[in-house]
């Protein structure tokens, strides 16, 4: 059965809230228990490459769920046929469906970043410390470049899958498996931590660049696949 709008709405807000809650809990723990400002700043710098990608990950999960529901949900609701009868081209339909899952996901991602930054600055000020960004600049660059690219790549492939399965739950199962592929590059910055928990800031930027390149490649490949394999006939034959 297709997802009810209210379930989707609250589910997404709940999922998106996990990221900021994690950030606020981590930052709060360090800010209010740190023995000195110097140690706090070092700790925060170390934590940023580990925690920042989590905000991106929690935005990819709702994106995949909305996209998985996009076409097969219409089919289960019996509204796919009238939609396919409109003069929309395959490309317009694909882009429309991708955007309808991309927009809420990107809003959730940006909202998570904003809430995390405001909460971090507020906690630093309350504790009497010089405020800092968390996610830091490297984390923000990663989230604002690789994040949207990953979401778009994930969405396009999920829309394609959504048009090729008969039931919403089949789409969810495939999305669960696919999301792992898209999550992996996002955790690359976590690998920049050495055995002692120290961090090499140059390695962070390098891992960011590698992640962005992987995200861009996935984006191009998945969109090319989606445009070439999008098939109205197959979608209708499954009705």
């Amino acid at each position, binding site marked *: 059965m297709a997802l009810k*709008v209210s379930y989707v709405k609250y589910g997404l807000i709940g999922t998106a809230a996990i990221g900021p809650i994690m950030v606020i809990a981590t930052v709060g723990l360090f800010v209010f228990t740190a023995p000195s400002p110097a140690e706090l700043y070092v700790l925060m710098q170390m934590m940023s490459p580990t925690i920042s990608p989590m905000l991106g990950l929690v935005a990819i999960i709702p994106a995949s769920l909305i996209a998985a529901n996009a076409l097969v949900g219409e089919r289960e*609701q*019996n*509204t796919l*046929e*009238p*939609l*396919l*009868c*409109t*003069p*929309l*081209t395959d490309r317009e339909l694909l882009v429309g469906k991708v955007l309808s899952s991309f927009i809420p996901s990107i809003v959730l991602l940006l909202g998570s970043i904003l809430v995390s930054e405001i909460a971090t600055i507020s906690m630093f000020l309350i504790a009497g410390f010089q405020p800092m960004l968390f996610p830091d600049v490297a984390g923000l660059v990663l989230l604002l470049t690789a994040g949207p690219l990953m979401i778009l790549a994930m969405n396009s492939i999920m829309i394609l899958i959504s048009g090729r399965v008969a039931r919403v739950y089949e789409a969810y199962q495939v999305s669960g498996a696919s999301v792992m592929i898209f999550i992996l590059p996002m955790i690359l910055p976590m690998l920049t931590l050495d055995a002692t928990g120290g961090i090499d800031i140059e390695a962070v930027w390098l891992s960011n660049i590698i992640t962005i390149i992987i995200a861009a490649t996935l984006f191009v490949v998945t969109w090319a696949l989606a445009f070439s394999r999008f098939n*109205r*006939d197959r979608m*209708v*034959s499954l009705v």
Partner: protein
Amino acid sequence: MVQLDEVTTFGLTKNFGDLVAVDHVDLSVPAGTIFGLLGPNGAGKSTTTRLLSTLLRPTDGTAVVSGFDIIESPVQVREITGVLPEEGNHTIYPSLTTYENLEYFAKLYDVPVENIPERIEELLTFMELWERRDDKAGELSTGNRQRLALCRAMLHRPKILLLDEPTSALDPIAAKRVRELILGLSKQYKQTFFINSHNLPEVQRVCDRIAIIDKGKILLQGKTQELRSKLLAKQKFRIRVVGDIEKSSSIAKSMNFVEDVKGEVDSILVTIEDPTENNSTLMQSLLNDGIKIVEFAEEEATLEDLYLEVVKGRDA
């Protein structure tokens, strides 16, 4: 240059694996007519409609809809066709209001934004749904949802309306209302209707041209009245009698010019060859055997008779 009819198919074929759903169908529907495609469930009616609306791509052959080839120009075909899918009342967005359902599709059909409110009001008023415009579509009755689905198909003023079983799942009153709407729309907007149905009386009441399809093949097509007269050379008569129906039936059956006899509660239905010559003989025989005749009247040939005749002929 040959002038094609509004809908013309050329060897239209669709296979699903080994199943031939539509088998080299050649149809011709002139502009402005109400065309009925008749056939039992699984005959290939819905697949034909889906091919014409470009939802499915033909395995072989093609069709030209108002000058546009369904394979070469699918977007143009979709622009000029309005489609009411099978069980159309289930194909609306239940969480949107009546108005929102139409507004959404008006935008998808590229209806100019400034014309959308006026267009929706006109259609909802015509379908007697204007008072329900702010109600959630999911709260409407089956008949009203079907009317809403019809409104959606009409929004962009299509030249051709493809209606798949427009009255299925409707109660008799709602079905009658939909039939009246089709006739009203045809009269008011001069559109071409392509209606799928297995409901023979409905097609008989509404369509001026028909085709019969079975197992994916067209068995016959033409003007409804002409086909009825052409195929039903033998006439059927209802003889209402007082007395023994079985005795009346056996008297009729004993006549060599009587092809078929069916006994009903108070009458027998007889199919007679050359009725001008033979009716009086049959009537006399019945009277001679003491049967009182209350009524001896010609039964109007129905599409059901025609349909059975054609299918019987094919199976033979």
